[in-house]
């Protein structure tokens, strides 16, 4: 272990993560309550590099428009549970996606995911975070995802999404309603540490902004969507973080419908 972290209040958990031990609810709550984000980053980065080495996968999201995924996102369609397997892409207004997801409970969401996995589909899980839920509820949900993944192995990636107050337009926000940098990095790092059986952790770049998105690659993240960035800018960001950019083929991924 790095000698620089020996004094961390999370030293016992660092040792567990280093020896590959799974963390429980109680440990997860401690992680979320700690302000030692560098220790969280240290643990998350260990898991990240074990799973994905130095690679950061990225996808140019705009292309999704041309695939068969788009129709289920059309504005006229009633929100249906099928849509939830699709997830987010740059063609849907952020608010309507959030609204859609809020129409099912988390328990129902997990059932839908499991059903999809049983049909042989690969899906991508998301979780809302923010002040509407307690820390314990966040961790409990992550552990439920981990159990489900133990049973089905169907999740390819996980993305925590900040829960904005209803009607928030991202462009108009001036900070006050936003998550903080600590919250975003903690949620990503803790997800990476706890979800030891999910391959990829994805950051939602439009919420984090390019600077924090780049930093998040040291806090567990190994998957990015381009959103509003150009491919060149995204590759620059990844390389300047010392990571190796690997482009994912949008078409192949979208065949499983569920990969956002």
């Amino acid at each position, binding site marked *: 272990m790095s000698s*620089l972290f020996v004094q961390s209040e999370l030293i016992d958990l660092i040792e567990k993560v280093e020896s590959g031990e799974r963390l429980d609810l109680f440990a997860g709550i401690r992680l979320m309550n700690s302000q030692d984000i560098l220790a969280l980053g240290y643990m998350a980065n260990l898991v990240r590099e074990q799973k994905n080495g130095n690679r950061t996968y990225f996808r140019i999201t705009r292309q999704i428009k041309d695939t068969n995924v788009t129709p289920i996102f059309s504005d006229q369609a009633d929100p249906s549970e099928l849509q939830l397997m699709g997830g987010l892409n740059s063609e849907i207004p952020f608010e309507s996606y959030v609204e859609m997801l809020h129409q099912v409970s988390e328990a129902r969401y997990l059932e839908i995911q499991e059903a999809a996995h049983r049909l042989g589909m690969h899906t991508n899980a998301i979780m809302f975070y923010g002040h509407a839920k307690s820390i314990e509820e966040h961790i409990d949900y992550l552990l439920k995802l981990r159990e489900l993944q133990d049973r089905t192995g169907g999740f390819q990636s996980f993305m925590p999404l900040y829960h904005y107050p209803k009607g928030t337009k991202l462009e108009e926000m*001036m900070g006050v309603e936003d998550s903080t*940098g*600590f919250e975003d990095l903690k949620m990503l790092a803790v997800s990476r540490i706890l979800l030891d059986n999910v391959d990829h952790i994805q950051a939602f770049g439009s919420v984090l902004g390019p600077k924090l998105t780049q*930093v998040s690659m040291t806090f567990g993240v190994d998957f990015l969507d381009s959103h509003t960035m150009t491919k060149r800018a995204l590759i620059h960001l990844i390389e*300047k973080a010392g990571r190796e950019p690997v482009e994912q083929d949008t078409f192949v991924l979208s065949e499983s419908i569920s990969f956002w």
Partner: protein
Amino acid sequence: MRTETQAIIEKRLAGERLSVADGIRLLQNADLLSLGQGADLVRKQMHPENIVSFVIDRNINYTNVCSCQCKFCAFYCKPGDPEGYILSRDVLHAKIEETIQVGGTQLLIQGGLHPDLDLEYFEKLLRDIKAHFSIHIHSFSPPEIWDLANKSQLGIEEVIRRLRDAGLDSIPGGGAEILDDRVRHQISPNKIGWQQWMDVMTTAHKLGMKTTATMMFGHVETFEERILHMVRVREAQDQTGGFTAFIPWSFAPSNTELGGEGSTGVEYLRTLAVARLMLDNVPNLQASWVTQGAKMAQVALRFGANDFGSTMLEENVVRAAGVKTRVPLQEIIRCIEDAGYQAVQRNTHYERLKAFRKEV
């Protein structure tokens, strides 16, 4: 496993001073988390209280006319340009009045180098402010002081003395960019050299005034030049002890002649952390929400920063370069508290004025 860069960080934690070569190695090779952890541990040594401070102030740009034409600057107009302005006394005083009303304690009055404004103009301006308001004047960076010295055919010591006698309390560290003349020649060929910048600061220190030092990085400078900048500040500080804070920020390229990619978030945190490790004799390190945004500035509190800088009621220069961040006071307090610190308003001398709590 203990890497070479970890050994350098541990050397600093044991109280040893880092060399130029150490600094370069850290910028080049150290991983982001080790740098952050090292800087955070040093910050805890230097500031064991769990406090992050900020100052309520206003940045007032008295003119945007500037004869210097720096290539990284998106703010200035050439003399004679119809877009050029000089703030009237009424507007200036109204801005000061507003600043005091929101609890502000400091004015950062800075401008371009306007060919028609001389030392007497600023002496009058300072006396007029001090006659009407009780507020700390932290104003006129070294290029402006040199410009006044040249226009009035006086030495900088005489200029600083006269400005001080008229009401100037301290000098901001602007115009430092990178304290190396190869870099300055490329990005701001008409600006004072690094030694002239430092002469203003050490002269002010000897006259009993405090100053800050900034660094604008992420353009044409090498890692070595970035470290040299820090070491030059450190050496001057050994002599005078007059620097209260170091304030690094990254170059914002849009609308500038210099252009380019600009520096990334990771680069900012790395540079900030290395500054905390190198500058063992400068007490305070500011996070720059103006160039990095609130989220990154909060994260910077784990990479060596112990101060959130100023509330900046107005920041024309950065806004002209396309950075549109505005972080109100409540957001600064929320960021500080959410990171686990107590938020405290300070004055220019880093004396604590008032503890703040987030309004719920």
